[in-house]
């Protein structure tokens, strides 16, 4: 079975001359929930645009369920449902009309029972005769999701699904994503937040400056990301790490005034208490301590640093 999404060397240079995608290779399997993680301007929306036929690609090749998005665009697009980052709706149409329109646009025969279930699932059924202009922002977002799912796609793109969304909608959305996964639908979402990727995804890809920096199983990535740092402010500067801590992953910074220790927060024994005991035995006094989680920024620094 071909991968659901297969990108080879995808590049996009906008008319402004800006290179938004710089040779993206990416494969996403059927039935996966894949999170594309990256900062503002990384190229997430551009990549989705290229796959969905909204942005023309400068170079490379994209297959959706084995169909080339340029040569065999009908079959490729038939498989895709897209919820774009920005809400864009015909505000004078009713909810039911605009969702039915999307389904017909994809050439699917009408299926009132399916549309009813979809609208109920998204808490839109009571609003089905309301015009879009009368809905709140969150409801409009739900309408966007209903439209994307109206033709029963095999792969759903959610471009920043939780930006500006309240707890209820977020919960409904995740429930929907799980239901879709159970039905074998592939879900690809973009986000700025590691937590979100952690919560939902099977695999995570990190993109920055138009390049995919890494693609990994969530478990493996979380182990990497699960690293924490303990920083101790020392009373008196140390010239070298204490003898008693030889071989420990510690470092002295700030002219010997702070000592940092990297550890895995997820492991049984973090080693923190042993460290503190040994320091006390060695007579090293400290005035303050703090622990930090590695942030997305740290990971980028790591990744880019590692690549350089």
């Amino acid at each position, binding site marked *: 079975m071909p991968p659901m999404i297969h990108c080879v060397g995808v590049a996009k240079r906008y008319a402004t001359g800006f290179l938004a995608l710089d040779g993206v290779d990416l494969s996403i399997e059927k039935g996966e929930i894949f999170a594309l993680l990256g900062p503002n301007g990384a190229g997430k929306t551009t990549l989705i645009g290229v796959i969905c036929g909204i942005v023309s690609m400068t170079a490379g090749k994209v297959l959706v369920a084995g169909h080339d998005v340029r040569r065999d665009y009908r079959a490729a697009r038939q498989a895709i449902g897209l919820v774009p980052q920005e809400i864009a709706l015909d505000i004078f149409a009713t909810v039911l009309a605009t969702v039915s*329109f999307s389904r*017909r646009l994809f050439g699917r025969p009408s299926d009132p029972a399916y549309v009813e279930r979809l609208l109920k699932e998204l808490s839109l059924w009571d609003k089905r005769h309301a015009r879009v202009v009368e809905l709140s922002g969150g409801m409009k977002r739900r309408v966007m999701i209903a439209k994307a799912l109206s033709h029963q796609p095999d792969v759903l793109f959610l471009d920043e699904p939780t930006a500006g969304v309240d707890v209820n909608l977020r919960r409904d959305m995740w429930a929907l994503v799980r239901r879709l996964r159970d039905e074998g639908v592939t879900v690809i979402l973009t986000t700025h937040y590691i937590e979100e990727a952690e919560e939902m995804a099977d695999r995570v890809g990190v993109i920055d400056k138009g390049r995919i920096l890494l693609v990994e199983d969530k478990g493996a990535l979380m182990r990497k990301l699960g690293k924490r740092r303990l920083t101790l402010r020392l009373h008196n500067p140390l010239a070298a790490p204490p003898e008693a801590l030889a071989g420990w992953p510690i470092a002295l910074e700030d002219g010997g005034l702070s000592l940092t220790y990297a550890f895995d927060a997820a492991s049984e024994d973090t080693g923190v208490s042993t460290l503190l005991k040994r320091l006390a035995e060695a007579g090293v006094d400290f005035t303050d301590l703090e622990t930090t989680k590695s942030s997305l920024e740290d990971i980028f620094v790591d990744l880019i640093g590692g690549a350089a």
Partner: protein
Amino acid sequence: MKGLNPGGVWAIYRAEMQRTVRTIFQSVAAPVLTTALYFVVFGGAIGSRIREVDGVAYGSFIVPGLMMLSILTQSISNASIGIYFPKFTGTIFEILSAPLSSTEAVIAYVGAAATKSMIIALIILATATLFVQVRIDHPLWMTAFLVLVSVAFSLFGFIIGIWAKNFEQLAMIPTLVVTPLTFLGGSFYSIKMLPPFWQTVSLFNPVVYLISGFRWSFYGQGDVSVVTSLGFTLTFIVVCFAALAWIFRVGWRLRP
């Protein structure tokens, strides 16, 4: 690239026609009102001085020109807004990402715009019969011109809608080019009534050919031969199609 998507074409066509129904006043009442005013002003004021043109009573003579005037303006505005608006609001993403060929999208949008302007032209014809006597010598040709000119200018309007980057540009070509050409194109007079120099100048006005052919289908006479009119209309359609084919091939102003 197997399989067409007639359901998708029909969906867009229907949505566009519904948009018309939603704005029924601007869509239908306004052109009818304008036409009635033309009859009062032109038919009444000028008609009392010019009794007839080429043996046709002046009031009747201007009917084909009035219909053509509204076909041109309506086709252009319907089709240009039809595609410009989704671009403006962002809903175009749905059309671009649908399993629909560009030809199918054009058929849907242009078909809807042309249908609408044909309906309006027929309403104007019906309104006109309340004021003056109208005779149609060649109903089949009349229908053919109605369809072809509506399609031609809806295609043209569609191109303007893709080209326009703002509402000013959207209104620019119709007001600066099409309306003047239509007024100078013999809507309200026969170009034979002009001095020889201006007759020659008029022959460079494409709208003259459209109105002339259309008037011929009503009263059996026009300023130029009907074959020339028809040839011109068909050429215009071909040129618009070629332009659109190029636009879609390079994604000009549609796909970044």
